[in-house]
């Protein structure tokens, strides 16, 4: 059953991270990290600042290369590590908005559609989905933090990616924003997407997440089904 958004089928059903290390200068940001992400799951990555969460996300987004080990997309014969083939199937909401403030919301999405070869009609559907039709034609610079975050999410999902990566998507979102994000995660899970979210907000729990990964000092401390809420997991693993 696909969600109400009717997205195209996923291009791959698994992402495997095998023995991946990433060193910057003389120390390891990530050291021998291994995990597997499956289609139709929402995974939260939590951990103290500088633990290597964003590094892991950048590796998954193929924007950065591991020093050791590799990240494989897909299963068996079809598995691919070559970036160019995988990139069109990756959607990223980075810490920065990745938008052009001088352009309007619609122009920003239209730009992404043109650059990624998506049908321009999708722009208005996504503007509606993220609830930005009203402000669509005013410059993104005039948007509130929450509106910019919604536009960034729309920009990332415009290409209907299989792997959706969110770097602290909740920053700046109000209560309605939080609800919108939960709804989006539910839709993406229903559409068999692989969703990975780096977050500081520990009030997520097993109701919305299929999996939790705790990263501390460049190593994975916990990787499995999340307990009731992330808070106690975090307390146990990290504090």
């Amino acid at each position, binding site marked *: 059953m696909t969600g109400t958004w009717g997205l195209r089928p996923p291009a791959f059903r698994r992402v495997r991270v095998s023995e991946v290390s990433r060193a910057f200068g*003389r120390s390891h940001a990530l050291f021998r990290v291994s995990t597997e992400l499956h289609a139709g799951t929402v995974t939260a990555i939590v951990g103290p600042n500088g633990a290597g969460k964003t590094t892991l996300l950048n590796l998954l987004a193929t924007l950065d290369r591991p020093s050791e080990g590799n990240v494989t997309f897909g299963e068996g014969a079809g598995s691919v590590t070559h970036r160019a083939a995988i990139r069109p199937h990756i959607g990223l909401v980075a810490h920065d908005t990745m938008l052009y403030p001088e352009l309007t919301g619609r122009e920003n999405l239209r730009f992404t559609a043109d650059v990624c070869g998506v049908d321009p009609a999708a722009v208005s559907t996504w503007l509606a989905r993220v609830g930005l039709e009203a402000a669509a034609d005013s410059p993104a610079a005039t948007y509130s933090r929450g509106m910019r975050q919604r536009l960034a999410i729309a920009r990332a999902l415009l290409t209907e990616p299989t792997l959706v990566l969110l770097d602290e998507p909740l920053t700046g979102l109000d209560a309605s924003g939080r609800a919108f994000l939960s709804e989006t995660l539910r839709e993406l899970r229903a559409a068999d997407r692989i969703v990975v979210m780096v977050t500081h907000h520990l009030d997520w729990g097993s109701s919305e997440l299929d999996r939790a990964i705790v990263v501390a*000092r*460049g190593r994975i401390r916990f990787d499995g089904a999340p307990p009731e809420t992330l808070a106690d997991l975090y307390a146990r693993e990290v504090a």
Partner: protein
Amino acid sequence: MKLTIPTLHTSEAGGEWVTWLAIATAVTLTAGVGMAFFYAPEEATMGVVQRIFYFHVPSAIVTYAGFLTCATASVAYLVTGSRKADVVARAGAELGVLFCTAVLLSGPIWARKAWGTWWTGEPRLLLTLVMCLIFVAYLVVRQMGGRSEMTRRICAVLGILGVADIPLVRVAVQRWRGNHPRVLREGGIAPEMAHAFTVMLLGVGLMFLTLLLLRIRAGLLEEDVETWHLQLSARRATLDDRRS
């Protein structure tokens, strides 16, 4: 637990013949300088200052070799991504600038005496000056950028652009200041002078190779230091992992 220590080089890169190379350089250069002073006759019009020619021109020739080494190693780095190529590129650029500076300093000294002006605007000197500027910029970027992967890539790009520029500068400068005295070619050169020049060229060339090899070794050693720092960090992570 794969914690082997990959070292990029044997500390004897080039093996023991680096010592022979150094000795050969010593012998050749000493012979060359000796011939340049005692065997080769003095030049009729310029007098003894012309003896600068014997290391000035070889240095200029070796400068090209340095920058070409940099460019080829830069292409190799971009294609293969191997740290060794990057080390060789940096060594080539440094030596190119070193000998380039020797040419740019000794040129005016020679010109001041022989032609009465510090700067003759002679095409070859202009070309050497531009090359020097390009690769000094290369070294500045290399210094500013630190040891990151990105800096290596940027320097590889600059190294290739720099060497690609040389023929253009050569043609442009030739066309611009070409009418200057062609000291070497027209009048030819007294036989003894030619012998001294050849030995000196060989000597300076061997000096270039020796220094290049020593610089590559030092560079590889520095890469090793970085690799070992990472090994250290890996062990700390492993220990840290065990403890929690």
